């Protein structure tokens, strides 16, 4: 397909040299092409076909909101001074005039009140960051629940996970920069978590803050991370991510004519180039609308950082919420038993702050699990095939149920991060919310797993029902004999395809290894495999379908039979 690999004759080279374009645009294009050779790239990339579905656009939103955040962030750097040197505020915000504060806070206030358009750009930057991580998260959920992370896309899933972590880092470092009480509280929590690490924690904290918290170093250090290292890493990984998307080709939902070997959709040039370009401006428009109408991070409220006060309603941005919530969830005492443990040592004992360390375990597990999930699932299912057709979430009931269970766990931690506001706004007792959340932290995922799995299976059965007998039309007929029956409307061919074209693998027993031995690990795997595939609903087979039609075939359903006969050639489940 690539013309650049072919050999050219001398005459052909000369022909290229002598080519004279007729139009002005042609001359410019030719000038550029003879120097940088863009034709090959555009021909290759411009013909790339992408399938069209609204759920495929969250990744794009993440990319666009990242670009918008970088652009607005660049604007902010022209005024912001990340220095912890003290100054006396003399800007135009009256309630803070004359107060001593760091240069970082003073310049953040200057940006908000004394720079034309500064407040808008600050708000755009902050809303953009919230949307960036939101879009990444929703994109990841889409990829997870449709099984798009499966072979050959496992590594790209890992790149995506790394992007999410980097996004969290970029967000948190940005949140900490203005050096008011709220961001200082956030850093104090980080300081506390670092110091909870046994033995080395204090050293790490002192290294990070350049001495005892808060010190004079941390804001400039976070600034370097925030405007240079983290965005650079994100940019590199975005490039890798997109490169892999092009290499792998895009996944698609099952449908007529869509197979594991093709991609049905529109080419980049001109359709997606225009759509994506337009969509960038839609995302920008939405963000500008929100940034212009809704106030975000009103940092003038919080006052210059002072390690003593913690204000009511002190929360991190939404994506750090679960980290905050799990700390609020964790009891320091169980009954009279203190969870803080002092390790007896010759120099008087080292305190082990378990109430800070234990909550990090579930969060760490979720993130670790994210990274290695593609391999865990492939190991359990024993599926080594390539997948380019996506699963409808209901057709992978166990994965969907597991995903919802983890989401539930996350949501409970997330909700606990705002337990005080839930208490005031719903007239509940803060203590009760905390106690119930502790129970639900363990019980919620189990309930969610069972419910989701049952709902998935029920939906699959419903699909079977619709494929075999059609939709209930809501029309009741009385036969001349006096019998009542409801009319059914058979699904269209397109709908039928999506109802029947999936695989429902059966559990596979333990397999012996090369030495012919079934290891304990293999037994464990096969138990998980049984759990994974045990409850399943088979897709409607062709025989079942024809039999059902035969059954309906008397009287008014002849049209359906005709459709089925014509479908005999394409036949559901054989369309490769």
């Amino acid at each position, binding site marked *: 397909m690539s013309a650049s690999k072919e050999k050219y004759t001398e005459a052909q080279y000369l022909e290229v040299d002598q080519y004279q374009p007729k139009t002005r645009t042609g001359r410019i294009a030719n000038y550029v092409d003879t120097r940088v050779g863009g034709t090959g790239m555009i021909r290759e990339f411009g013909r790339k076909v992408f399938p069209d579905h609204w759920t495929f656009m969250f990744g794009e939103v993440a990319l666009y909101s990242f670009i918008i955040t970088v652009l607005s962030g660049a604007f902010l750097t022209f005024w912001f001074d990340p220095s912890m040197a003290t100054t006396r505020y003399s800007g135009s915000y009256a309630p803070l005039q004359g107060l001593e504060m760091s240069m970082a806070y003073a310049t953040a206030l200057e940006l908000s009140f004394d720079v034309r358009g500064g407040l808008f750009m600050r708000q755009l930057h902050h809303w953009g960051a919230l949307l960036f991580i939101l879009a990444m998260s929703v994109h990841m959920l889409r990829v997870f629940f449709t099984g798009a992370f499966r072979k050959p896309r496992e590594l790209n899933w890992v790149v995506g996970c790394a992007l999410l972590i980097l996004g969290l880092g970029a967000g948190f470092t940005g949140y900490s920069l203005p050096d008011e009480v709220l961001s200082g509280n956030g850093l104090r929590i980080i300081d506390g978590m670092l110091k909870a690490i046994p033995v080395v924690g204090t050293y790490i904290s002192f290294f990070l803050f350049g001495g005892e918290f808060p010190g004079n170093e941390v804001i400039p250090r976070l600034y370097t991370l925030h405007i240079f290292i983290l965005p650079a890493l994100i940019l590199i990984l975005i490039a890798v991510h997109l490169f892999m998307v092009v290499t792998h080709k895009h996944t698609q939902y099952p449908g007529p004519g869509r197979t594991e070997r093709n991609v049905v959709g529109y080419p980049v040039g001109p359709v997606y180039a225009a759509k994506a370009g337009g969509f960038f401006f839609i995302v920008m428009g939405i963000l500008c609308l929100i940034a212009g109408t809704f106030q975000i991070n009103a940092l003038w409220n919080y006052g210059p950082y002072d390690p003593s006060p913690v204000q009511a309603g002190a929360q991190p941005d939404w994506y750090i919420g679960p980290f905050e919530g799990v700390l609020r969830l964790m009891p320091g005492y169980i009954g009279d038993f203190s969870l803080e443990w002092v390790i007896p040592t010759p120099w008087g004992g080292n305190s082990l702050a378990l109430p800070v360390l234990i909550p990090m375990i579930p969060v760490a597990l979720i993130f670790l699990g994210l990274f290695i999930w593609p391999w865990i699932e492939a190991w359990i299912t024993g599926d080594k095939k390539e997948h380019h057709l996506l699963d409808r979430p209901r057709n992978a009931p166990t994965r969907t149920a597991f995903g919802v269970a983890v989401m539930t766990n996350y949501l409970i931690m997330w909700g606990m991060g705002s337990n005080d506001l839930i208490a005031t706004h719903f007239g509940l*007792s803060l203590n009760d919310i905390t106690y119930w959340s502790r129970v639900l932290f363990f019980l919620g995922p189990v309930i969610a797993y069972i419910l989701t799995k049952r709902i998935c299976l029920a939906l699959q059965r419903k699909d079977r029902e619709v494929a075999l007998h059609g939709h209930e039309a809501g029309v009741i007929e009385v036969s001349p004999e006096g019998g009542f029956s409801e009319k059914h409307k058979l699904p269209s061919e397109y709908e039928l395809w999506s109802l029947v074209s999936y695989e429902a693998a059966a559990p596979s027993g333990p397999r012996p290894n090369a030495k012919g031995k079934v290891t304990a690990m293999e037994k464990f795997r096969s138990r998980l495999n049984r759990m994974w595939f045990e409850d399943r609903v088979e897709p409607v087979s062709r025989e079942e379908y024809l039999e059902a039609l035969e059954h309906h075939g008397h009287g008014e359903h002849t049209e359906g039979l005709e459709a089925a006969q014509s479908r005999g050639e394409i036949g559901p489940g054989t369309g490769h």
Partner: protein
Amino acid sequence: MKALSQKRRHPFAFVALLLLGLLLTGGLYAAATTVNQAQASNVPDGYSADQVDEGERLFVANCATCHGMNAEGTDAGPSLVGVGAASVEFQVGTGRMPMQMQGPQAQQKPPQFNDEQTTQLAAYVASLGAGPAVPDDEWLDVDQGDPARGGELFRINCAMCHNAAGAGGALTEGKYAPSLHGVEAVHIYTAMTTGPQNMPVFNDANIPPEDKRDIIAFLKTYEQQGSPGGFSLGYLGPVSEGLLIWTLGLALLIGSMVWLTSRSS
């Protein structure tokens, strides 16, 4: 003078001295008791006897069920002896008392008594024993206050419960610190001096009246400035911001996505 010194050994000198001493002590005692009486009498400073009487009548009709016929307190409500006129001004003036229902704390509602009646009740409660008084207008005049200093005091003393923007916050067991937006200056002041519900008392030794005025000046300045960046989202900080991006933001995005891809399917 000579006559006096000559007569000091007079037989009646002792009697005269004794008489003088008795007169002095008696006079002083009488004076002292009248002063005392004036304070403990049923008419406190700044109120009239009529107001006290009227207040007592209102009290017996509306408050005595819980606070007792003589405001001595019952199981349902605390004693009001010594809580002062400021407590009445706050609790009755903001509608918290008479209480709508028992609960974690008294809820604010439209005041049940007008200013005149509130003053009468305050006069009666003040007559029961010394307590914080309703502040003079001087301490409520925000023009004399320093909002920047008040803001600093607010963040150190109040924001941990009431939120940095005065939007309120949660306490334990269903109790809460209410929002301070739109609260009258006199109620902010009396809340500080009396410590209603779960609030600590900030007396004049802790926060002098000038500082209280600064805090009120800060709150009023803050109220007037509005929210410079657009809709405030309840001044609740990152939680309501996160909620907005996950609801409105996501809805707008999905809407545009569905629109963009609607043609092909």
